[in-house]
């Protein structure tokens, strides 16, 4: 975690330090970073039934090579679409306890409006294109998440 002021994307099986991710994208001409911190939540509403289920833990699986390729494509596309300086994306894989961070996306930009827009766009796209899958483990079973419909 030493390089500062450059784009990066990574997969890791260890805990993610959100602070360090956010600070790695900071170039000296920027004054604001927007960070999306996604984490394993305890309660999830089942789409079909509306029932609230309690998750014990999560497991994320990635098609690593392709996931990194797709993340790099998103970074390139974000630079074309938005006036931003640097982007950092780190996604965790493997087993995650409740409350642990699964994904961090940090965007530094000269103007915070662009940082907000780019960060929101990146997480939406990541959830639709980057080959990573989430399994939710309950007391009485487990299920692969069905992902998020394109909007």
């Amino acid at each position, binding site marked *: 975690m030493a390089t500062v002021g450059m784009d990066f994307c990574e997969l890791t099986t260890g805990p993610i330090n959100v602070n360090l991710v956010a600070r790695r994208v900071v170039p000296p001409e920027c004054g604001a970073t927007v960070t999306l911190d996604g984490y394993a939540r305890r309660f999830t509403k089942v789409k079909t039934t509306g029932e609230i289920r309690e998750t014990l833990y999560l497991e*994320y699986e990635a098609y690593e*090579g392709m*996931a990194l390729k797709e993340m790099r494509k998103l970074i390139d596309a974000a630079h074309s679409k938005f006036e931003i300086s640097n982007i950092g994306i780190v996604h965790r894989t493997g087993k995650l306890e409740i409350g642990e961070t699964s994904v961090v996306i940090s965007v530094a930009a000269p103007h915070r409006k662009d940082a907000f827009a780019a960060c929101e766009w990146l997480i939406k796209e990541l959830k*639709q*294109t980057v*080959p*990573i*899958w*989430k399994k939710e483990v309950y007391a009485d079973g487990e299920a692969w998440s069905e992902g998020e419909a394109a909007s």
Partner: protein
Amino acid sequence: MQIKVLFFGATADIAGKRSEELQVNEGATAKTVLAELFSRFPPLAAQKLHISIDQEYAREDSIVKNGNEVAVFTAVSGG
């Protein structure tokens, strides 16, 4: 010609394995590969699947070449 098929998440659970070696004919498409996989692992046919060739999203009519790494998976759900 020979290709390697990778499974992830739900498709790995259905196949009961994480990869499969397949022999396919010259000119085979992603659709040809899927048809062969459906015959080996019938429950796969009930899934809405995505397919990639050498780590790039592919369409059903994309051509598969010898030595390609093909992956078959359900909707991604990272984040």
